[in-house]
């Protein structure tokens, strides 16, 4: 098959700048072949090369005694003792999910699962962070239904519990929803695998699904006019096959127990190209691929298509020469394909053979060493000062705070999202000790006393008003959520969702957020071990709110210490921890009730926050707590309501005996300060708890005793829990159109 001529249009369609093109010529010492053009330009795309973000990501703290693998691999790894480690990463699938919500979200889950199990880890928990447009937007119900069904369809089928996440709605996502999927796996220290193509002569083996023309992207559509294909439109939407991935997962798990594997990597973005090149690059080797050996699903595929296809459920592995049979035996047992498609070489070249021709011969190292990296211009948006202004006095004070509380409970972002997670199998594996609906999910680690706490957080409004502070607060809140459940924060992964980085304002937001996140990770001792950047979340020139989602994992030393967030026992004492200042800037209340996104996010006193978190963990360990819930979106009143209401129905009430200490009662109830929590404690434990609070310098206020079927804070409100539950639980199903 004749490959097309390299023309200036073709170069442009591959997204290369003049300088990048020149660099490509220098590396090769000649013009690239069509296939080489596809391979190198996709490795240099924003998605693969992180060319706009790399320079900033270097600011993240990535090390610590607990870190076994930081960024740079398919997923990061953290030690949890007992020769065990957890492996996790989060990744975005925003654009595909907007185009085809079910398949986009499903393949997002499939992709992140592979990133984790390719490291040798068995996935034990999934999370996801979802941002949709405003509830009334005509596409929102369709997108919400499709995305949730897609996540459920994939995760449930492969049998990994989806134990938590967040679902929010805001007009800023009308044209660009966010679907960020997280997977955490468990691995023994001596069973960690990495993407290394070491040992010249070793066979390169392709396993899993056949290759089709799935997901061959925009620029590459140029190839259409050169192919023999007659059909009008070539499908680019990838369809997930969770059953195939389940088989792949089990086969790989069996393989990891054998001593025949050198390296392994999933085929994610840009499929075979990136997995092969990255494996050779890490090992400092070369590779020859015989593309005729690739199992295909469609006819007449070109070398270009084989290299760039993003067909799902495929992995590339390098085995020890002589031990291949073990690989083939295991894959045959699982009725899967496995084919030797190439071998490792020592000359540092990436050589592609197809139909008797050499269609590519590129230097491995140069492609990554010479990958473009930009320090793109930044500038603080002109409107930033303006949105930070807030005239609090001009806000009308609601006449009936009880009604306001009910309204807030029914608001899209505060209401119960059980409609979402009821569709996720969150109990398979029989490890989920804290199910969705609380601050953090907790899964136990069978065979030990330990458990893993998990949470994903970000307040995009805060990040819009002040990206640096917002990103900092996301990390702080994640750590607080884990501490409430009794888990010690260990490390984070992140998904940095932003607009177009070529715009200085967006780049400024990005750089600010990275700095804030880096600082917080330093302060809270939670290094960044993996992550993902998603740029170009813009429609008609309007970008989403900067949304640096943070997923954090923590360690529970003893599952007996785990604390839930709802009131548990009649008669327990309820304490408010931390001070309530009535900060209203950037709050859900300001946005939902007053229709304003303005002001500054709340300030944080890091020392005070860390003390609170230490207190929560110590109290959990000493078994002094019946429940603990952090105060975040919606403020004190919403947090109290969430302590009383359980996902399955009204729980235990509380009659608060406490005074409002703020200029305005609405600010007191709905303001969003940091470093606060509500805890409950039995009459037997309360003294010890107070002593501990005194010792750690935690401000406490006694709010009353758990009991009854109302939440009352006289004279401001007095509501029946059943009415509150009704308000809280009806909204999301309505948005979805059920």
């Amino acid at each position: 098959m004749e490959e097309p001529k390299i023309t200036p249009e073709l170069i442009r369609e591959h997204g290369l700048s003049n300088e990048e093109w020149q660099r490509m010529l220098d590396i090769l010492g000649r013009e690239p072949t069509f296939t080489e053009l596809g391979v190198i330009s996709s490795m240099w795309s924003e998605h693969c090369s992180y060319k706009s973000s790399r320079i900033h990501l270097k600011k993240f703290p990535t090390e610590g005694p607990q870190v076994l693998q930081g960024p740079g691999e398919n997923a990061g790894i953290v030690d949890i003792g007992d020769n065990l480690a957890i492996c996790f990463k989060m990744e975005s699938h925003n654009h595909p999910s907007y185009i085809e919500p079910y398949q986009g979200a499903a393949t997002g889950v499939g992709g992140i699962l592979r990133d984790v199990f390719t490291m040798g880890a068995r996935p034990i928990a999934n999370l996801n962070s979802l941002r949709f447009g405003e509830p009334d937007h005509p596409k929102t119900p369709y997108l919400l239904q499709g995305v949730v069904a897609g996540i459920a369809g994939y995760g449930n089928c492969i049998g990994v519990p989806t134990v938590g996440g967040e679902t929010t709605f805001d007009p800023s996502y009308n044209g660009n929803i966010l679907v960020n999927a997280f997977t955490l796996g468990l691995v023994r220290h001596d069973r960690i695998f990495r993407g290394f193509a070491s040992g010249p002569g070793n066979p390169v083996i392709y396993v899993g699904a056949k290759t089709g023309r799935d997901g061959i992207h925009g620029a590459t559509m140029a190839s259409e006019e050169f192919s023999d294909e007659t059909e009008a439109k070539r499908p680019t939407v990838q369809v997930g096959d969770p059953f195939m991935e389940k088989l792949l997962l089990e086969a790989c798990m069996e393989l990891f127990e054998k001593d025949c594997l050198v390296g392994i990597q999933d085929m994610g973005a840009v499929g075979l190209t990136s997995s092969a090149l990255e494996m050779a690059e890490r090992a400092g080797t070369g590779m020859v691929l015989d593309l005729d050996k690739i199992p295909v699903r469609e006819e007449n595929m070109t070398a270009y298509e084989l290299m760039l296809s993003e067909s799902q459920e495929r992995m590339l592995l390098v085995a020890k020469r002589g031990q291949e049979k073990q690989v083939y035996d295991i894959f045959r047992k699982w009725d899967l394909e496995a084919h030797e498609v190439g071998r490792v070489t020592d000359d540092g070249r990436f050589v592609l053979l197809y139909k008797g021709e050499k269609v590519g011969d590129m230097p491995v190292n140069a492609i990554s060493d010479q990958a473009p990296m930009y320090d793109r211009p930044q500038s603080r948006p002109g409107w930033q000062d303006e949105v930070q202004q807030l005239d609090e006095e001009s806000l009308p004070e609601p006449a009936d705070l009880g009604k306001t509380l009910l309204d807030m409970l029914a608001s899209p972002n505060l209401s119960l999202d059980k409609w979402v997670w009821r569709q996720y199998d969150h109990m398979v594996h029989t490890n989920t000790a804290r199910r969705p609906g609380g601050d953090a999910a907790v899964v136990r680690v069978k065979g030990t006393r330990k458990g893993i706490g998990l949470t994903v957080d970000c307040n995009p409004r805060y990040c819009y008003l002040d990206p640096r502070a917002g990103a900092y607060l996301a990390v702080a809140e994640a750590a607080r959520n884990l501490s409430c459940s009794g888990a010690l924060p260990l490390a984070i992964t992140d998904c940095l969702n932003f607009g177009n980085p070529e715009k200085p304002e967006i780049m400024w937001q990005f750089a600010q957020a990275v700095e804030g996140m880096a600082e917080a990770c330093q302060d809270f001792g939670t290094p960044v071990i993996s992550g993902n950047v998603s740029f170009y979340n813009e429609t008609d020139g309007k970008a989403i709110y900067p949304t640096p989602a943070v997923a954090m994992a923590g360690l529970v030393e003893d599952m007996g210490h785990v604390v839930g967030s709802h009131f548990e026992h009649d008669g327990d004492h309820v304490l408010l921890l931390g001070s309530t200042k009535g900060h209203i800037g950037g709050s859900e209340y300001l946005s939902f009730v007053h229709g304003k996104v303005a002001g500054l996010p709340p300030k944080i006193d890091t020392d005070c926050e860390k003390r609170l978190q230490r207190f929560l963990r110590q109290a959990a360990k000493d078994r002094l707590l019946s429940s603990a819930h952090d105060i975040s979106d919606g403020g004190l009143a919403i947090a109290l309501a969430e302590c009383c209401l359980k996902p399955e129905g009204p729980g235990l009430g509380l009659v608060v005996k406490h005074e409002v200490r703020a200029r305005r009662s609405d600010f007191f109830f709905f303001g969003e300060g940091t470093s606060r929590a509500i805890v409950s404690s039995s009459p037997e434990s309360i003294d010890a708890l107070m002593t501990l609070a005194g010792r750690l310098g935690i401000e406490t206020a006694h709010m009353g005793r758990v009991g009854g079927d109302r939440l009352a804070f006289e004279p401001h409100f007095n509501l029946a829990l059943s009415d509150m539950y009704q308000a809280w639980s009806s909204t999301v199903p309505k948005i979805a159109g059920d």
Partner: protein
Amino acid sequence: MRCGIVTFPGSNCDHDCLHVAQSVMGWDARLIWHKEKKLPPLDLVILPGGFSYGDYLRCGAIARFASILPAVQKFAAKGGLVLGICNGFQILTEAGMLPGKLMRNRSLRFICEYVNLKVEHADSPFTSRFQGGETIQIPIAHMEGNYFADTDTLKRLEDEGRVLFRYCAPDGEINAAANPNGSQRNIAGISNESKNVLGMMPHPERCSESILGGEHGRRLFESIQSWVEERV
């Protein structure tokens, strides 16, 4: 107590059942690969939950042709205990070991949550540690749990006391509001004529330890154990 748990391609709850059998119940338990043709000596065979063959075509439709199934059928015919949970129940119906069919949930959505179940009969090998008429809580997690059978079959199931579990309200009332998936007569679990084969949509293995927030499921495994022990 010897228990075998069949692993089909796509089984997800095989290890969960193994965990309960071994670590909670202390049984001699093992996994059995679907390509086997013979069963070792056993007292109980579990067909676990999951998505055998991706649940493609129809749930259980492809798994019913597994090499191991004739052996399971023979085991059941000789009176051996067979427990099909969720996908296992679906496989049992597709294989004709239990009547009826599990259709798509009425809501067309996957549902994962704790439900209330009424134990209709405590005289089966699977329910002796419950009280007849008792209300218990066990989670469900399925997309196809909507039990369907023709009227004659339903009548026979009822007359023969083979409906062992029904979805109910917290107070035990059987009504439409308590029916999560549209099952006829709120049916959640049925047995074969000789009561040694049980298919149920709820997952007892998910609530057999206090740390998971529920322990009613363990009583089902305890019932099985005492039934088997009484017979040796």
